[in-house]
């Protein structure tokens, strides 16, 4: 399945909106889930495969479960001459070749945890002695939460690399439907893989020095990726004016401000979402979606070079 629509501006109705943050715990999942609940007929893609949480709030019935597999090399012993080519070409140091010595048979050690599945070893083995085999790193689960189509991934405990699983989760995106992506925190590879191909990114932040520090990093990533973005300032009344100033100086629209409310925190703790309990919030999130679409369509939608390549 293509990850990005190719037509110019077509399917503008079906935007891919990512919700990200830089700093963790600012309310990404709350905002993403609220948007999905308000819109109803959308797909929700939880890309935080290390710590997926959205299912706790959307409570989908998960009907499909696919193991997420990555390619790893498997040595065909009888063909291997222990020439060492595979170890030489592996940029990730996951193959060690022990040459035959003093009558002892040689061997090849593969460390699958380090493998990035690039295929260099199997392609470049002069003897054709490396077969592509697979190993599981987690699962992709999908199902329905009412009208919402839900997909998430769960990385197995002890696995280091989430990007391949994130890419597999995103393989389930149907580009003809509006999509909400719940991204992992941070600014490195997992986030970039989650955001890649999105039309718009909502950055959820909090008005504290921590929130600001991580927001600046997240904005820099979005600029590099060429993804238009706006802010939701959560707990907008608990910190200082740093985030608002930064947004103003950098021309980043503030799409929504959510004041601190202990009720939201308590509902959240029980896996409940504010829009299910409070009509005002439902209205606010509906307005947020409209705002996002306006920004996407008027400011950026048609000039933007699609983020694939």
């Amino acid at each position: 399945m293509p990850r990005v629509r190719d037509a110019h501006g077509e399917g503008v109705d079906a935007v891919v909106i990512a919700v990200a943050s830089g700093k963790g715990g600012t309310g990404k999942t709350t905002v993403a889930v609220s948007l999905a609940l308000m819109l109803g007929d959308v797909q929700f893609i939880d890309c935080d495969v290390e710590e997926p949480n959205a299912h706790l709030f959307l409570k989908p019935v998960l009907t499909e479960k696919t193991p997420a597999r990555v390619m790893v090399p498997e040595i065909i012993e009888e063909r291997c001459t222990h020439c060492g080519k595979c170890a030489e070409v592996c940029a990730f140091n996951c193959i060690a070749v022990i040459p035959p010595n003093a009558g002892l048979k040689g061997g090849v050690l593969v460390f699958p945890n380090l493998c990035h599945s690039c295929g260099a070893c199997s392609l470049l083995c002069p003897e054709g002695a490396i077969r592509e085999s697979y190993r599981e790193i987690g699962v992709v689960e999908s199902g329905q939460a009412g009208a919402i189509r839900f997909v998430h991934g769960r990385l197995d405990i002890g696995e280091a690399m989430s990007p391949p699983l994130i890419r597999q989760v995103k393989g389930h995106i149907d580009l003809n439907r509006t999509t909400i992506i719940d991204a992992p925190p941070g600014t490195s590879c997992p986030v970039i893989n989650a955001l890649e191909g999105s039309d718009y990114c909502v950055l959820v932040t909090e008005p504290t020095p921590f929130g600001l520090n991580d927001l600046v990093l997240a904005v820099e990533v979005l600029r590099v990726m060429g993804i238009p973005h706006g802010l939701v300032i959560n707990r907008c009344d608990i910190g200082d004016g740093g985030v608002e100033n930064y947004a103003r100086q950098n021309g980043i629209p503030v799409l929504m401000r959510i004041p601190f409310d202990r009720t939201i925190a308590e509902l959240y703790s029980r896996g409940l979402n504010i829009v299910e309990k409070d009509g005002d919030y439902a209205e606010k999130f509906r307005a947020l979606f409209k705002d996002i679409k306006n920004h996407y369509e008027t400011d950026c939608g048609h000039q933007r070079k699609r983020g694939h390549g």
Partner: protein
Amino acid sequence: MKQIVVISGKGGTGKTIFTASLAALAPSKVLVDCDVDAADLHLLLAPRTVERHEFRSGKTAWIDPALCIACGECADACRFDAIAESGDDFEVNPLKCEGCGLCARICPVEVIEMRENLCGEWYLSETAYGPFVHAKLGIAQENSGRLVACVREAAKDIAHTRSLDYVIIDGPPGIGCPVLASLTGTDLAVIVTEPTLSGIHDARRVLGLTRHFRIPAGIVINKWDINPEASRKIEALCDEEGVRFLGRIPFSKQVAASLIKARPYVETAQDGVADAIRSAWNKIDSEPADKDCRSS
């Protein structure tokens, strides 16, 4: 020398605020910020940077546009979808390139160069609380796990040369690569969690990780009074899993407000939050990490 890492699974549970307070409470230590892609600890420690080092790791492919014959073999071979046609040429998308070098090896005219990445910087700083090793991953760079390993190595050296008792590590959220790099070889993982469904869900996964690597773990519940019932469940979980319960910190709006003071929380307030952090530290400090959960 003992290495203590503060992690959480879920982001935003209060790791850094807790770690900064340990900086003020622990007597003899080096501090390390291993959340290299969203580092915040420096904001509370007023560091004076004395050394700055480049961090180079991994490579990115570069196709010489003048010499490329546009055969497309590289694009076909790339498993990361990182090479695409761009006008008459082929171009590498550095965000997608994982640096495997396959393209450079198979290019029939040998015009692909693998260029070393400058992935970020790391710093050695002095603070009022002791030496501090921290880093900044470059924008949209990879290899955060290796950068974590690099700052931890530097911190361990300092602990040895200055004969310090503790290496105190502020860890990243999640359970992936930088978390594994922050956790390996530590003597105690302090898991800061919150009494929410997500907090518990994520703490369970982190506990799975500490068990997997046989690292003794302790749990601190932050904002426990947001949901007292869920807090009791977490305490029960500690019993079940043979994990040390290090205490519960009440919710206070003062905590977020205090960040502006740019100092460890225990130095800015005398309240229930500060008391709870102090008591958690006393538990960590009084029980030698070696003797308890290591065997379980």
